[in-house]
């Protein structure tokens, strides 16, 4: 039943967006709330129903593709408007609508006082629509529609407070950086079409899998590698990986629910989703996979280090997101696609929770975001504190919270896949994660209150704490659907299996459960060490952080300035480009060369006219001389130059 109504799933939020966007200005807030939140809730229900229906099918049949109409057809290029529901998209749909619904509810309270209330919800619903389209798309081009759509919504929502120049700038930056990635993506799509003559996921992957002679899995750099790398460029843009990670921290200028939904839980994970969706392709492009792995690792490590030195609570979380996304790509790069998705899901829970919690903190402190002006909030906003603590533990990878299972699976995959260096650095990153996360917790909730006079921290309303609790439960328990093999069967991986059936798998060396367990214990230990270090530095010894910062001044400044990547881009790309356009192309080429040539041609003819004017001197005798000269010339021609 539900599979027949698959089109409803994205269209419900779209209808909500249209209704709130077009009519919202005239509707009362209550109606807007009803429509928008109702739409997201309905989408969640529909997603749930679809998921259930999928579950009811035999694993082999869990792939439902519906083509609604031909979207674009020109010559042999056709793109269908087709939706694809399979375990992978079902999981994503659930995450998107579920977290989305929760955050919609949270936003009711958070955005209560805003003028642009309807606008906010219209954008949010539009985002849900785009994200669902991205997730459910049955072919590359339609996916690109959602892909750009979520970029647009991100742009709109970051720039929601458009009167603040910082927000406006951040929105534009997000869109442009995303666009750079999108170009890679669309080029990848074009190459897919060129290579396979088709764009549908099923058919393309089928052709790859069924034709090992043309697409040998272990080949070096071939067309598949090109496609994979181009697509991955798109992923780096959307998922804020090096070198296109710069937009995400700035995106924190958006309202906090937006940060939670778009820039933590869903949109930024689209890159991961896409890579996993294209796993049959990536898995046959080992070079590309290595690139994914290295980029993921580098991003994870770099972002984690930056996270240590940030003072804005949301920015810490943003870098944390970048770092965690890096983990997901590490998983994909190591071939553990389902682990990536698993971490994607758990991360969605606890990171959304962290952001919402941060939002609650900010709300409590009347807009204060600087960690240095917080402290001692533990008792003032207990619900927020406890739920955030759960999330912090989860992200740090403390057993048995959700993050533990997913992260551990990734690290294990890296080791098992034969990348010990990756494993070590990953482990280090996990420790750093615990360190910066608990730095946040300690600075915000423990110690002396440092907030400004006149601010009276207060707990958030029920509509905000409710979602916190719900997400806390998910963060705590969400991991159990993907228990590792040594604790039982990984049901999550098995569920995803039909979506990954075409993935090429090399020989996997077998390791004992004991080893796996040992590794898990090690990672928990590292996390605990991180927490301990945080406690020592930020809580036990006041001023410890300052001393460390002073001792490693250069490094600290480098981290605080985020490795100065923005400045580098500004100097290496933005300003040269603007200078080139302004001075060389416009002033020199356009005005200086082309226009001058055009005007010069005119001017030279005018000056010829001027010369003629001078020759027309009014004297009869010189006119006669002209006639005589003409006569002489004609005669000269007739006598000498003839024939």
């Amino acid at each position: 039943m539900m599979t027949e109504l698959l089109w409803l799933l994205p269209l419900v939020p779209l209808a909500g967006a249209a209704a709130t966007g077009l009519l919202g200005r005239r509707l009362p807030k209550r109606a807007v709330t009803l429509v928008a939140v109702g739409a997201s809730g309905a989408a969640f229900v529909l997603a749930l129903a679809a998921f259930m229906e999928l579950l009811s099918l035999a694993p082999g049949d869990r792939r439902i593709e519906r083509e609604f109409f031909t979207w674009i057809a020109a010559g042999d290029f056709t793109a269908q408007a087709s939706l694809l529901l399979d375990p992978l998209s079902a999981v994503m749909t659930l995450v998107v609508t579920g977290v989305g619904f929760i955050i919609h509810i949270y936003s009711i309270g958070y955005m209560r006082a805003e003028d642009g209330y309807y606008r906010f919800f219209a954008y949010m619903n539009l985002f849900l629509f785009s994200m669902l389209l991205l997730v459910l798309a049955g072919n590359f081009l339609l996916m690109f529609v959602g892909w750009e759509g979520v970029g647009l919504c991100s742009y709109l929502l970051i720039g929601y407070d458009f009167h603040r120049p910082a927000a406006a700038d951040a929105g534009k930056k997000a869109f442009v950086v995303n666009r750079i990635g999108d170009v890679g993506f669309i080029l990848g799509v074009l190459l897919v079409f060129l290579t396979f003559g088709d764009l549908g996921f099923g058919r393309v992957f089928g052709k790859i899998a069924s034709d090992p002679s043309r697409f040998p899995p272990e080949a070096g750099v071939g067309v598949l590698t090109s496609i994979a790398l181009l697509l991955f460029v798109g992923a780096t843009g959307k998922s804020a990986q090096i070198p296109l990670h710069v937009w995400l921290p700035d995106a924190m200028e958006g309202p906090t629910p937006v940060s939670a939904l778009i820039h933590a839980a869903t949109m930024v994970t689209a890159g991961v989703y896409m890579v996993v969706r294209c796993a049959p392709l990536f898995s046959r492009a080992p070079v590309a996979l290595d690139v994914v792995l290295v980029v993921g690792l580098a991003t994870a490590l770099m972002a984690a280090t930056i996270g240590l030195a940030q003072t804005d609570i949301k920015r810490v979380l943003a870098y944390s997101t970048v770092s965690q996304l890096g983990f997901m790509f590490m998983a994909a790069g190591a071939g553990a696609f389902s682990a990536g998705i698993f971490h994607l899901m758990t991360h969605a829970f606890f990171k959304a929770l962290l952001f919402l919690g941060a939002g609650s903190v900010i709300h409590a402190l009347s807009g204060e975001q600087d960690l240095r002006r917080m402290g001692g909030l533990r008792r003032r906003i207990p619900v927020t504190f406890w739920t955030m603590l759960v999330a912090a533990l989860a992200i740090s990878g403390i057993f048995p919270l959700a993050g533990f299972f997913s992260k551990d699976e990734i690290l294990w995959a890296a080791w098992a896949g034969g990348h010990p260096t990756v494993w070590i650095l990953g482990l280090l990153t996990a420790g750093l994660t615990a360190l910066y996360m608990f730095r946040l917790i300690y600075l915000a909730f423990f110690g002396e209150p440092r907030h400004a006079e006149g601010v009276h921290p207060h707990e958030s309303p029920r509509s905000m704490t409710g979602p916190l609790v719900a997400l806390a439960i998910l963060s705590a328990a969400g991991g159990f659907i993907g228990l590792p093999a040594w604790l039982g069967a990984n049901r999550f991986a098995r569920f995803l299996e039909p979506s990954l059936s075409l993935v090429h798998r090399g020989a996997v060396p077998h390791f004992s459960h004991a080893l796996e367990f040992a590794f898990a214990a090690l990672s928990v230990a590292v996390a605990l060490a991180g927490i301990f270090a945080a406690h020592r530095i930020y809580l036990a010894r006041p001023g410890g952080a300052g001393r460390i910062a002073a001792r490693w001044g250069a490094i600290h400044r480098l981290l605080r300035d985020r490795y100065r990547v923005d400045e580098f881009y500004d100097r290496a790309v933005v300003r040269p480009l603007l200078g080139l356009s302004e001075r060389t192309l416009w002033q020199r080429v356009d005005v200086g060369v082309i226009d001058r040539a055009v005007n010069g041609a005119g001017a030279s003819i005018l000056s010829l006219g001027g010369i003629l004017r001078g020759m027309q001197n009014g004297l009869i005798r010189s006119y006669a001389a002209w006639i005589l000269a003409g006569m002489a010339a004609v005669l000269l021609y007739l006598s000498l130059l003839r024939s």
Partner: protein
Amino acid sequence: MDVPFILSWTTYLPAACALLLLALPGASDRALRRIALAGSLAAFVLSLHLVFHFDPFTGRMQFEESVSWIRLPAFEIRHHLGVDGISLFMVLLTTFLTPLVLLSSWRSVTQRVRPFLACILLLETGMIGVFCALDLMLFYVLWEVVLIPMYFLIGIWGGERRLYAAVKFILYTMTGSLLMLVGILYLFFAAGGDTFSLVELVARLESGALGWTSREELWLFLAFGLAFAIKVPLVPLHTWLPDAHVEAPTAGSVILAGVLLKMGAYGLLRFCLPLFPGAALALAPCISVLAVIGILYGALVAMVQPDLKKLVAYSSVSHMGLVVLGIFTFTTPGLEGALVQMVGHGLSTGALFLLVGMLYDRRHTRRIADFGGVAHASPVLAAAFLVVTLSSIALPGLNGFVGEVLILVGSFSRSKVFGTLAAVGMVLGAVYMLRMYQRVFWGPKNPANAGMGDIGTREKVLLLPILLLMLWIGVYPPPFLRRMDASVAGVLRRVESARAPGGSYRVDFMDARGTPGEETK
């Protein structure tokens, strides 16, 4: 239902209306405006008839009509009109935009209303005629006729440097078109000197009854192509465009960007490709290079423009470069993409100029730096502007994307380098458009905008059809694409015939780049 002379009716109705305007000495401006609007709407309704009765399954000309115009012993020039899938939407775009343009000038043009309306209506006749004409001379005549009202529109109702812009416009375009006249004459005599009919000439070429040396063909192509390239405009022949756009009144800019530029690309498709396929093939690499340069160059220069109209003008250079690139891929997606992009660019850039005009009406400035925070004062205007901006930067789901992606498919299949560079244009497009949008509409409340007010009903009526059409093309383009298929296939067949083995032209430059195992048809 078969309406006789439907194309003539559509074409000449606006001109008749213009004459009516000139013949009504006592009428008030208000009445004149209404008459003009009614006339253009009637033309639009007539053109709708074309769509509904258009047979998408034939590549031949439809609604053809042909009467003798100038009959001489040796030859005759015929008044020969017809539309096919290539011209159909150009005609529609014209008839669609003209009423909107008239509506847009309702308040902003208060001086010399009568000649203004007459100019616009004459312009409409010329433009429709250009798209329908199947006789080379008729085409040429109408092509030139279009210049004059445009010249007056810029020169009389334009901005401060209007005279310079008008002269530049006319000299640039006349240079090209007069050389085309020589080309037409040469072609005519080379073909036997008895017919100017495009259909007949193509038929002769196809049957082999007519032929020329490759050298002749090259020169002929250049004679035609120069006129079209100036009109498109192709870099480096584009410098008339920013000036003309900036100085023209809103209505002029809309028509200029919306329709006039399309005449160039249309000419390439309609004449250069079917008549000189060999030369088109031979020159495709050079033209593609220019087109790609245009895409990037226009975008980069647009990025640093301080004037709204100038920015949009340079963005047109960029977008039209894409159209030319699409045409010279000689692939179905490329050509259809170019056509969709032509329509789409007409809509989005037309709408942009309308919106800039609305801003200008309110603030009497077009400098980007003078604005800021407009979204506070005019949220609906800001929203509409945003949609149009997004369409212009090819956001999926809006019209720009369909054309752009098809062109990219076409060009990418020909040359990965060109395709990639063209795609880079997408990024630059986003940069300059969003930069502009941010600086104009976002930012803190600006006291200068205090008296702006949001857009009124008339302006909403103006924008709504465009926005809906953008959405329609973006979401469900098959009705458009389907009607182009047969005609585009016809053009491509002509081009391919020149590529036949033993043909004098081989184009290896562009095909050489594909990796083994991925030939495309």
